[in-house]
């Protein structure tokens, strides 16, 4: 089987060779032991958050993982410039930008799960299955609403409400003034609330119809 360009690049990167067969290929930095430890800690502490940033934008599971890896790769290259204690904000800032780009580039189809819980009631009646299903449907609904929002509002809402960043941290991560972050959060909440209201009304209407 012929090796794809991506595989060739990956192999060359690991082996420290030029993918085109000439000299050294040093795209990824060699980490010192201390940097490796720091990166490992960041990975362990923040991977889930960074991965979720991709998921909430609508990336499929594998793409969200790729997105998170890319965010950490960027962090590895800029490790010396990331202040202690600011790792999470940095990573999430990078991750949301990467995810938004990936979504636009790939024109990802969003996983559509039916919004009406009655349509997907668990057949075996097991509480756990029902609970899991309810959570999955809630997440699907959340994603659907988030993805209908503009990038700037969604990013702030997601970082504040889902990933629990503070407004100063969001401002730093997105490189915007704190006042702008606060104002976007206010607008994002209004938008989110309106969308939920509209969706609920539509669902109620569709249930009434035979």
């Amino acid at each position, binding site marked *: 089987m012929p090796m794809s360009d991506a595989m060739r690049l990956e*192999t060359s990167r*690991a*082996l*420290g*060779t030029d993918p085109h067969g000439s000299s050294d290929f040093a795209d*990824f930095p*060699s*980490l*010192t*032991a*201390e*940097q*490796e*430890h*720091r*990166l*490992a*800690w960041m*990975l*362990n*502490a923040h991977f*889930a958050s960074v*991965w*979720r940033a991709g*998921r*909430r934008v609508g990336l499929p*599971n594998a793409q*969200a*993982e790729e997105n*998170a*890896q890319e965010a*950490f*790769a960027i962090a*590895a290259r800029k490790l010396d410039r990331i202040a*202690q*204690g600011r790792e999470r904000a940095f990573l999430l800032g990078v991750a949301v930008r990467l995810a938004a780009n990936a979504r636009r580039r790939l024109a990802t189809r969003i996983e559509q799960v039916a919004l009406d819980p009655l349509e997907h009631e668990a057949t075996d009646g097991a509480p756990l299955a029902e609970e899991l299903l309810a*959570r999955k449907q*809630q*997440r699907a*609904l*959340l*994603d659907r*609403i988030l993805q209908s929002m503009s990038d700037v509002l969604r990013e702030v809402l*997601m970082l*504040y*409400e*889902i*990933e*629990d960043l*503070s*407004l*100063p941290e969001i401002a730093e991560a997105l490189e915007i003034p704190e006042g702008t972050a*606060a104002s976007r*959060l*206010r607008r994002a*909440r209004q938008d*989110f*609330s309106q969308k*939920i209201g509209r969706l*609920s009304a539509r669902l109620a209407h569709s249930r009434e119809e035979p």
Partner: protein
Amino acid sequence: MNQPQRLKAASALGHEGRLMASGSEEMPNPEAIHRAARRLSISATVLASAVAATAVAPAATAATSAVTSGGIGTVGTAIGKATGSLLMMSVVKGTVIGLSLGITVFAGAHLVRSNEPAKVPNLSPAVSIVLNRPRPKADNPGVASATSVFQDAVPVTAAARVVSPSQDSPAQAMVTGEPAAPSVGLAPAAALVGHFEDLESPAVLPIPSQTSTDLLPSQGPGATPATATRAGALPVDPRLAREVASLDQARAYAKSGNATGALRELNGFEASLGYFALRKEAMLVRIDVLLALGRRKEAAATARQLLLSGAPATQRARLQDLVRNQP
């Protein structure tokens, strides 16, 4: 700047809050983090030490967020979650303190026997600091004694740093609610599994005090009495202990010039059980052994395999040289 209350933190969780909470709950596949680590060339051992260093952080975060949200039920849940981690930390603290006291008593007895100034080779830096510290002379022996005890307790030793409330420690994380920042080379798991470089020196692996033969340290040529005195520190996964023992044995063979024996040890262990945590370290040992045997081509092939699976950053340049200069 005022931080508006988060939707999911509202005392009466509304529909919007539940949606947000559902978004926070989604977690990636646990394997994803290992895949990312491999891609970033972070060795499994370093990742394992990072996991251990942040082990208490989730409990702290849960407790903090529950307290700030003000929900009694949530606090109860968080306390429940935190209890396990706190219990674990207490056990670790107790073990470390016990170990330190034990070593100190042992060293004291050694001093009395030898009637020499405090000089204890092969003990941890912690003990060296304690035993080599010059005792202050004072007119009042009581005061001198008290001062000495206090001063001896002050130095942050390798063992104490693991549990000391420094900015980087898990204990601080309990206060701030932030995950513990990395403390290079100080985390218990780092000492447990270590780097390949760490394994080059005599074993620094605390071995549990259980009498199970599964948990015994290496009994090979490299095993020393000092290794045995380090018993009783932290619980070790039996598989990890076997891997460490096997690698110790292989390295001891290699150091004594018995490269064939080393290779046999590596092959034997891999064939019977396989390595699960120290695979990369085993590959590094294998490369050195193969080089010692003059089997450069096989060493280069192993190096290539290791590079493709994510070699430790500190070894990458050497391995790349080996691959490029293969016969």
